[in-house]
């Protein structure tokens, strides 16, 4: 019955300082603004969004993809220790898993707030449609949440073998879930911009990138503000993984860009998208997506790369860039009208419909992010999620 002293000790944060309450209050206020926006949308319909019959998906769905990505990304970080036996990453395993669970809830919230008739949403459980990727996803998301919770429980109960098994399963599940999300977009054959098998792996890569992009700054701030000792080397390893993912992402963009630009059906539209300022997509593409990624890469390669602030900025930049990427993935394909009449040169009406997210969409999407962070803030207070010390484990001296 001897006490086994675990090498890493997880501990709740004290969470009674005014700063803690202030942060929670900020998140809460953002959430409340989002709730207000949603109530307005509930009453007045989705006319409050910037969407229309040609661009029926926009910010909300971009947020869905993004949050699921962030969730899958952080779950993979969480499973690093269990999956690859990287014991030094065990310090992140609990909080990252919790973050993953919070993010998947945010993602489901994003779907819920985006759909027009949420009162009917139980229907996707009752009337499951096996041919719809989205329908599968509805199951995958909810089951993914359950997997996250079970994984967390297994970690809390410190069942080593079980944790290991669930970690493997959870990562597989995360990849499956995220492939499913990629499939939602990638399998739409009627839209030349969407139809691409590359979307699926691209989604997974950007998932890991965005998950890390959010986690690294979160950890830096958490450890700083809870006055926890932490080892920048560990975060640097995470940053390196993120950098690799960013390079892969850029590579994928280039490949996909060539493909879209090469196809006669889409090359005109593609060129117009990346050059003409008719819609905001061009800025989002050059500055938001590519610009920020290169900037982040530059920071990650610069001599200050091991500094906290450098990793912090790089993380934030990647997080934003990945969101821009999701936006570019969804919106331009709809902004440019389909070619319904192949063989005819002139088609009227030919509208390029620019899409600007409205304040309600911003409010709701930010509120969901704030909600996830609020859950994280409360989570680290009521559950033992964070390590006492975020350093590489060394043997405790026996005295």
């Amino acid at each position, binding site marked *: 019955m*001897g006490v086994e002293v675990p090498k890493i000790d997880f501990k709740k944060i004290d969470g009674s300082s005014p700063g803690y309450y202030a942060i929670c209050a900020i998140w809460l206020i953002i959430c409340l603004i989002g709730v207000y926006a949603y109530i307005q949308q509930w009453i007045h319909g989705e006319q409050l969004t910037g969407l229309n019959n040609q661009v029926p998906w926009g910010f909300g769905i971009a947020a869905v993809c993004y949050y699921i990505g962030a969730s899958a990304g952080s779950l993979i970080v969480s499973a690093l220790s269990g999956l690859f036996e990287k014991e030094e990453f065990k310090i992140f395993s609990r909080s990252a898993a919790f973050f993953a669970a919070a993010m998947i809830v945010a993602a489901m919230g994003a779907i819920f707030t985006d759909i027009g008739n949420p009162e009917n949403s139980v229907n996707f459980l009752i009337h499951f449609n096996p041919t719809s990727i989205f329908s599968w996803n509805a199951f995958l998301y909810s089951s993914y949440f359950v997997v996250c919770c079970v994984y967390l429980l297994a970690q809390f109960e410190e069942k080593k073998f079980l944790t290991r098994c669930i970690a493997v399963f959870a990562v597989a599940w995360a990849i499956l879930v995220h492939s499913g999300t990629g499939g939602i977009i990638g399998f739409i054959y009627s839209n030349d911009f969407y139809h691409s098998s590359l979307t699926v792996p691209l989604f997974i890569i950007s998932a890991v990138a965005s998950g890390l992009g959010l986690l690294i700054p979160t950890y830096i701030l958490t450890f700083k503000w809870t006055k926890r000792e932490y080892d920048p080397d560990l975060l640097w390893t995470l940053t390196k993984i993120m950098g690799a993912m960013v390079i892969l992402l850029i590579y994928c963009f280039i490949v996909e860009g060539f493909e879209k630009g090469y196809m006669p059906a889409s090359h005109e539209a593609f060129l117009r998208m990346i050059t003409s300022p008719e819609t905001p997509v061009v800025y989002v593409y050059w500055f938001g997506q590519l610009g920020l990624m290169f900037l982040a890469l530059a920071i990650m390669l610069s001599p200050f790369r091991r500094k906290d602030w450098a990793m912090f900025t790089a993380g934030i930049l990647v997080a934003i860039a990945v969101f821009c990427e999701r936006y570019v993935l969804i919106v331009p394909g709809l902004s440019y009208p389909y070619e319904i009449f192949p063989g005819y040169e002139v088609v009227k009406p030919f509208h390029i419909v620019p899409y600007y997210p409205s304040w309600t969409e911003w409010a709701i999407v930010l509120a969901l992010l704030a909600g996830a962070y609020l859950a994280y803030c409360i989570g680290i207070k009521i559950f*033992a999620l964070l390590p006492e010390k975020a350093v590489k484990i060394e043997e405790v001296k026996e005295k």
Partner: protein
Amino acid sequence: MSEVPEKLEIKQRFPLWKKWLKPITEKDYKPGFYSYFALPKQVNSDFFKMPFGDVVREPLEKDWKLPENWKEIVLKEMKDTMRKNRGFKLFMDICVRCGACADKCHYYLGTGDPKNMPVLRAETVRTVYRYHFTPFGKIFGEWAGARPLTEDVIKEWYYYLYQCSLCRRCSLFCPYGIDTAEVVWWMRRVLSRIGINQRFMCISIEASSRTGNHLGLYAGGMAGSIEQALEELKDITGFELHTYINKKGADALFVAPSADYFATPHWYVLLGYLLLFNELEEKYGITITWSTYASEGGNFGTFHSYEAAQLLNSKIYKEAERLGVKFIIGGECGHMWRDKHQFINTMNNPPKHEEWRRFWEDPDLGQISAGLKGINLGEFISGEHGWIHILELVAALIEHKKIEIDKSRNDHWRATYHDPCNVARGMGMFEEPRYVLRNVMNHFYEMPEHTIKEKTYCCAAGGGMLADELMELRMRGVMPRMMALRYVVKKFGVNIMLTPCAIDKAQFPHAVEYWKIPVEIGGPMEMVGNALVLTAFGEKPEDRKYDLRGTPIREE
């Protein structure tokens, strides 16, 4: 080498209600788990007389020599207790048996005996209550969970009511605040009415009511003991220190548990008190006196009954009045502070003498010495109570920079802190001792969160369970605390557990030996004494070579 005592095996058993309704008898008594009965010299003495205390009883004998009409007495007393104590009556009625308390009791965890779950411990009483005091119980009998009062029930009560240390941990988790300790305490009182008393606590109660303290120490002995302490301090510090005893006109009366006068590791705490008092007197002119009449802070009566508790704590306010002190300082003790915090001013009339009244009109220590201005006891104490814990005082002195501390003198100690259950759940003093310890030493580590502060585990020797015949029970009950301790010992290399409780200090040295944990036991005041620089005597921080245990502070 095994880390676990070999004979310890915790077998959890879960009989169904019909089975546990049948009371156990003396044949089921296990050695190490039942206490001896009080002897006539304890409960039939001049100074402590209990009903039917003149009979010698033996727990393992079939005939307990109860008075003829014991049944009527018990039922009448139960009824009377309900009228006298709302808690008791309420706790009989509203338990829903949700089980939240079950695995909170250290005795249950250590023994696995189902009736040691707080819910069933109280249920042994409730079943009888239902049979004799509720309509459903009488009609439906055991189907309503009711059973008549029989002699076997009395035996079961004696067995299980005296396996509770009154630590109130179950009360913390109960959604209705049911305090099993309260049930147990008042039921022990009922049992005492038919002559059933536990020997260990009655020895102390009788001694205290006759001599002023539990150990039966006479005035001269106590004075001699303190003198010896002063001698030892002279060896350690090189200064000729002094202290007052029974001195009229002193500013404050100091009351400590009597074990501090010569038991170890209590002794080092006593040295700590003396160092602090001398520094305060030299620097600020505040005089603190001991008393031989009120020489006991602890109160074993609080384990026995309201009346016994009152009998023992009635002396202190009287002594404060006689000596004319302005306020009272209490030493390091657990149940003493339950008594001093929650009971003493209800059970007694507070002092009304002039000095007391004048001080409490504006209870700032600046009244006594200008140098201490700013430490205002009125922030949480009034003249209707007048007690301050020594660690609260030290915390205030440190906060206001009134004493000088050299933390490095405690560098050879890596300490953890055990919250005594009564201080934690009967008083709520959590931060002051931690504040003090963080300020007097560099290496202070907390035990796991679930075992500290309000959730602290009992040492399993409180509530009269410190008796030697209960050693098996004690060593089992202390298991949760020892596990937590072993954890910090392994993790942080802790080598001393500090606890401001005399019973803890008596129990833990046995417990750590039994559980094979290489750790010392001490009190926070010992660390204060180590770190305190006697600036008023001209001491420099580096002057002290030995700590209060006589071991060299710095390795040469």
